[in-house]
């Protein structure tokens, strides 16, 4: 081993983070962005235009994620090109610039798959969990994550502006970079809602007013305008029960837990050892066995309550 004293690794990482932080800038916004118009809070969308300078910039940690996402876009384009498709990377689009109501944005990719049409696509790099869970338009709408729920509005806005009724999402998993392709039909009802929402935003901005706060803490807690919006947070208080009987039952449950675990382990080992033995004697134990036919049935989708009990 060298006796050289190496530069402090924390100093190195700090410098990298600082450089990344320097790159993060907040830019003015004059009209809603296609990538944002699906946001559930209209107040946020209005603030993004009228109080853009008050936006709290994202942290450097997120900037690493965004940069990775931009690299994924290049990888995705390479995928289509290598497969022999004609790929277009649109420059700032005239159709978008002339859209009414005004929505701005930048189309990721347009691809000719050889059927005589060119399709608009949106590329997203996603973690493995999100990548696996997204397979249809409904999956995007049903996602718990706000940023994923915004994706359909973004793609459909581009499709609407381009006058196309079919587009696609091209997803790549991170890590792994595996591809997933999802065709998306333009949902005219949904698009109508998006356009009306855009018109409302335009009006609020023009009138110098803001819509009311939404009642969704999960959206508010990460909002970059939380310090200017100051929404009232209303949460249901935790129920605290004073029940000696229930407490004793819970105590007993936790006492039995290790024994139950041991029981299951030994039961499993014994079952494995006596499998397919019709008659067997071990010490004072007589063991018999046979095959039983099990009736097949389908488990219908349903909802169930899952409780977690932790001992404090």
């Amino acid at each position, binding site marked *: 081993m060298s006796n050289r*004293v190496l530069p402090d690794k924390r100093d190195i990482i700090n410098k990298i983070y600082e450089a990344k932080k320097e790159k993060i800038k907040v830019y003015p916004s004059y009209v809603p962005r296609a990538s944002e118009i699906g946001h559930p809070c209209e107040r946020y969308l209005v603030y993004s235009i009228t109080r853009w300078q008050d936006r709290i910039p994202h942290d450097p940690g997120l900037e690493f994620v965004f940069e990775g996402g931009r690299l994924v876009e290049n990888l995705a384009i390479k995928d289509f090109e290598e497969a022999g498709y004609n790929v277009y990377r649109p420059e700032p689009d005239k159709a978008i610039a002339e859209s009414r109501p005004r929505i701005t944005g930048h189309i990721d990719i347009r691809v000719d798959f050889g059927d005589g049409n060119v399709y608009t696509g949106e590329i997203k790099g996603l973690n493995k969990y999100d990548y696996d869970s997204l397979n249809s338009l409904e999956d995007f709408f049903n996602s718990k994550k706000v940023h994923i729920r915004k994706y359909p509005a973004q793609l459909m806005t581009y499709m609407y502006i381009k006058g196309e009724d079919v587009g696609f999402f091209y997803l790549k998993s991170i890590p792994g970079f595996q591809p997933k392709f999802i065709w998306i039909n333009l949902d005219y009802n949904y698009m109508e809602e998006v356009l009306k929402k855009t018109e409302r935003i335009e009006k609020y901005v023009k009138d110098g007013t803001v819509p009311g706060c939404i009642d969704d803490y999960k959206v508010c807690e990460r909002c970059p305008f939380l310090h200017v919006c100051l929404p009232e947070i209303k949460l249901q208080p935790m129920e605290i029960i004073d029940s000696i009987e229930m407490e004793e039952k819970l105590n007993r449950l936790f006492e039995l837990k290790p024994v139950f675990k041991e029981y299951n382990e030994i039961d499993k080992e014994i079952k494995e050892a006596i499998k397919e033995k019709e008659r067997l004697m071990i010490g004072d134990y007589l063991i018999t066995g046979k095959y039983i036919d099990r009736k097949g049935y389908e488990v219908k989708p349903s909802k169930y309550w899952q409780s977690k009990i932790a001992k404090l």
Partner: protein
Amino acid sequence: MEEEKNNGEEVPVAIGSDNLVKMAEFAEKRVDAINRIKRAALRVTNVRDWTNQNGNPYLQVSGSEKVARLFGISWRIDEPKLTEYDDGHFGFSYKGYFTLGVATIEFEGSRSSKDGFFSKAHGKDIPPSEIDRNGVKKAALTNTIGNGVTRILGIRNLSWEDLKDAGINISGMAKVDYKKKEMSKDAKEQRDKIGEMIMEMAGNDKEEASKILEDLTSFTAKDGKEVKGKKSLADLSEKAVPVTYGKVKEEYEKWQKKSKKVKGSSKKDEPEPIEEAEYEQSSLT
């Protein structure tokens, strides 16, 4: 005042024997409840929700939000107040009203551009005009929410022991020390020399070197308590570097003399003197 007899002595009703028991029971229950709340709150946080701020555990806003969600704490916040100082610095304060069930408390949280977090970078002062106003404002809000949540639950001032007991790995915690400045070039050079000497004495064994450093930087405090030394060069402060350098140099020179002696004697195939070997070992571990 209404009074009752208690063991032949007259005592006020409010603290009569039955009431004393009740009060004691109530106090015990209250302590028990606070301890349970504390443990439940800690249960939903992890190491990323805490920072070591000037030596004390500090629950960050991410942790406060988790705790607030668990207990169902509601709040509303008034518009912020801006205070501007003569030296160009400024501060924001928010007043919040925090509710849990039927109980509501008020808390006013504030942050100032004078805080080291905003006003210093690499040991140098940042002019107030260059400090991000929104950053200070947001920090004042998170300070208000964080404090409001922990105050209404009565779980302010948690200790490192509390965190350890809850299974939070405090060694991996982010550290915020506002007073820390970047080390000067001279100190860095001395620190590098300390590293070189220690590594040589330790035979390039990093673990051994760490032990040597710990030994040489340990000392007895004024109150007679033994203060453990630093295991890593990165933990040496600018002030500690020259002192440590002196000690290490002295030890290094002794070690050099001895190793020359040992080498010389081994040439003659003589056994290594026991006393010297023992000394060498005890001085380095």
